[in-house]
């Protein structure tokens, strides 16, 4: 992918209103937004609800299709679709994770996962949809096995972080779990072949060029050999690992620091997301969205990254989440903010070469 010859702009396609409080997180529904299937997006909020938005095939604009309410009684912090798109998991400050099923356009809460002592902050499905991970303020990471009939069985409670855990994220292809925390570290968890238990195989902290303040989020590139993380220390870091070694079942293939992007943000970076074609988006407390791409000029000690563009005042307040659509054929980004809105953006060539791909 060559971004050197063109100028790009991030065009606002729609500003979606509906939530009555800050919007914390977003999730595009897998398998939607291409081949005639309307794009579907879920958002969750401090207003204790989750909203599901669907793009109208006629107008192209997103409309509220469902409001998932009266289940969580505190902030809904995170939401994640199962890989099949059949289930939506929502993590709440009310200490529970709810599982919702789309039953003919209506969403029914089919399961509630209890166990965390207090706020659940993030939820993530593994690639096959057979495992679910949650994390929270009680410093723990839980792994749940997805059983038939919407049953969920806790298979492991992972202790290791010394402060609240902000986000859990499964590797895009392998059953390796990543968590990041208020304790400034990223921890990597893998299953022990012998006794079926999970343990921490690596900790990325200051001593191996890691972050020096809260790590808020992380994301993987399409092949899963690189990871990006963002932090309250105002930096974005790129990490790499040997994917072949990982695929051969070596959960211990170490992750190494490749690059640090600093000097771009001057307030906390809450969200990073790597698009399938290699564009890293970041959302921060400076109300801006930035896009980064790998630079052509490789440094001796690894890849370098450059700012593709900065969208100032993308929102009226903090940008809490940025999420690329998983559909490769469109460069569509969604963002969520403290201003209570969700925005849909399209990355497009800025001078006369517009290729609207709705």
């Amino acid at each position, binding site marked *: 992918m060559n971004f050197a010859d063109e100028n790009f702009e991030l065009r606002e396609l729609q500003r979606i209103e509906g939530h009555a409080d*800050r919007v914390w997180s977003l999730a595009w529904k897998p398998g939607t937004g291409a081949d005639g299937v309307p794009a579907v997006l879920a958002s969750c909020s*401090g207003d204790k609800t989750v909203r599901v938005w669907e793009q109208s095939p006629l107008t192209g604009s997103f409309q509220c299709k469902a409001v998932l309410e009266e289940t969580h009684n*505190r*902030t809904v*912090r995170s939401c994640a679709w199962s890989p099949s798109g059949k289930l939506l998991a929502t993590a709440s*400050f009310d200490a529970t994770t709810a599982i919702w099923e789309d039953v003919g356009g209506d969403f029914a809460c089919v399961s509630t996962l209890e166990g965390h002592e*207090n*706020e659940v*902050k993030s939820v993530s499905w593994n690639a096959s949809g057979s495992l679910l991970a949650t994390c929270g*303020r009680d410093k723990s990471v839980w792994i749940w096995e997805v059983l038939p009939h919407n049953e969920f069985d806790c298979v492991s409670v992972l202790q290791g972080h010394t402060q*609240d855990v*902000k986000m859990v994220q499964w590797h895009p292809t392998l059953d390796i779990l990543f968590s990041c925390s*208020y304790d400034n570290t990223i921890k990597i968890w893998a299953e022990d072949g012998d006794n079926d238990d999970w343990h921490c195989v690596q900790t990325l902290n200051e001593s191996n060029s890691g972050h020096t*303040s*809260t790590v808020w989020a992380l994301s993987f590139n399409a092949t899963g050999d690189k990871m990006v993380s963002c932090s*309250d220390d105002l930096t974005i870091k790129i990490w790499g690992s040997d994917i072949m070694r990982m695929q051969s079942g070596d959960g211990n293939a170490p992750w190494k620091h490749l690059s640090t992007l600093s000097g771009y943000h001057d*307030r906390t970076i809450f969200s990073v997301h790597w698009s399938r074609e290699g564009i890293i988006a970041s959302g921060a*407390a400076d*109300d801006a969205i930035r896009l980064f791409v790998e630079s052509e000029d490789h440094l001796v000690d690894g890849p370098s990254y450059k700012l593709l563009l900065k969208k100032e005042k993308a929102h*009226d*307040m*903090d940008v809490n989440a940025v999420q690329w659509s998983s559909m490769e054929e469109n460069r569509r980004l969604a963002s969520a903010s*403290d*201003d209570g809105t969700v925005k849909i953006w399209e990355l497009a060539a800025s001078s006369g070469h517009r290729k609207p791909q709705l």
Partner: protein
Amino acid sequence: MTLGLINANPVVHAKKERVARNDDPHAEDAVDPLEIYDILFLQSLSVLSEESITVDEKLGRILITFTPTIQHCSMATVIGLCLREKLKDCFPPHFKVDIKVAPGSHANEESVNKQLNDKERVAAALENPNLRQLVDECLYSSEL
């Protein structure tokens, strides 16, 4: 500290012991009338002065530094929450507010500052009924 001493002077030691016990600034014990008293008391000791507030109108940023009256003050985070809530009503919503304890004024300065400026923890704390009540008592029973 021996039990004998505690019994010998219950009022003073009850308070001292409470401060020591609540060393974890994130502790969310049930609301204790004594704690509310402490907040009002600390307010009356003026933890804030004019010089501790910096406003950058152009950038829309506000920095507040306050001085907890005790080096180990367990209420520093609650005072910080009150300041944040109070300010929410005074400035346009897009203003960025940073709240810190004055340098050298608190034994756990770094951790208190980190908590006060982690908006997720602030949001969670304000949804906690006990802390919410404490903050409301603080905000509505007297002016900061």
